[in-house]
């Protein structure tokens, strides 16, 4: 299954401009593009790191998912004290009705090198940088930028279903040379 976020609904219908000016400017299409269509999951030599689908917090007894979905335990953190390398669940910045799971790579203040754009960006206050483990098929901060921490709902600690993937979801050291932390935690 692709590790990119679930595809957004088709393009939003036009809405009238919000300004009440007498000669309101003509409406233009939203600039942010929808995510690219999901590409087939590229096989990796590393062990699967964790679920890439929408998780459930409580596994309902007796329910056997027949559609290949995976289920995980998510622990909330009201203080937003997440660390680099943890897998987190957050509300998608492009669609508030869906949730995304990615690995948290950078914390506020860190400097991140974005390879595709060959630039180095500093993560603003109150935001984090997230990337999917399967880099080639992941739509993440490299496309939509830093994500406000307020959207993060919790850290994924364990996968509980399917049995072949059961186990703890561990922290992983961010890719070599990509992150320069501003503070050492």
């Amino acid at each position: 299954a692709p590790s990119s976020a679930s595809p957004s609904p088709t393009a939003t219908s036009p809405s009238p401009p919000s300004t009440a000016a007498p000669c309101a400017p003509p409406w233009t299409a939203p600039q942010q593009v929808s995510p690219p269509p999901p590409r087939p999951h590229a096989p990796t030599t590393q062990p699967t790191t964790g679920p890439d689908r929408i998780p459930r917090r409580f596994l309902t007894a007796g329910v056997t998912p027949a559609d290949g979905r995976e289920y995980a335990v998510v622990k909330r953190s009201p203080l937003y004290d997440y660390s680099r390398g943890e897998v987190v669940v957050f509300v998608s910045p492009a669609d508030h009705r869906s949730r995304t799971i990615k690995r948290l790579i950078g914390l506020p203040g860190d400097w991140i090198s974005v390879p595709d754009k060959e630039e180095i960006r500093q993560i603003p206050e109150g935001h984090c940088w997230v990337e999917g483990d399967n880099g080639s098929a992941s739509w993440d901060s490299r496309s939509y930028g830093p994500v406000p921490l307020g959207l993060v709902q919790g850290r994924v600690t364990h996968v509980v279903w399917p049995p072949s993937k059961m186990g703890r979801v561990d922290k992983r050291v961010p890719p070599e040379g990509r992150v320069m932390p501003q503070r050492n935690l």
Partner: protein
Amino acid sequence: KIIPIEPSSPSAAAMSRFVRRLAGIPWRQIAGEASSVGLLMAQGLCAVHVVSEHVLGVAFPRGPSMLPALNMAGDVLLTDKVSPRRGWVGPGDVVLLLSPEDPRKIVAKRVLGMEGDEVTYPVDAGNSDATKTVVVPQGHIWVQGDNIYSSNDSRQFGPVPYGLVKGKMSYRIWPPSRIGSIDSKE
């Protein structure tokens, strides 16, 4: 059955009276009542918490950024927590949202534009008349304080993802002179 023993001294007599009093108190009944009242209170607090977090809560906004619609302090507003989840938020609504600069802070601002809308805003209110126009990206909203001269909002931190909106404030219950609905301005 307690067999009374002749006390050997006045203090021993007081002691045995005290022990008899203790034995007479219905401890088990008291413990039973205390735990059932305690349980009821815990259930009540849970219910209040669930309702105020997810259905209808109360907010005490402070600060100058929403003058004149909201006072600097002392206002009590009813906060609807259901509408944002259902997508029933639109331009003109006053919303509570987690600050994109600090997720532990909750701010109250007015929504000026939804995704796809064009928003024209003053870049440096008070110092110049210059304005800028942006298109709000997919999944985001543009929020601004009514008091543009003293508000930290989308003009500084950009459009915010809709997922940060936690409540809609549409009714004020205090102070008495201003009880009523908050106007929804376009």
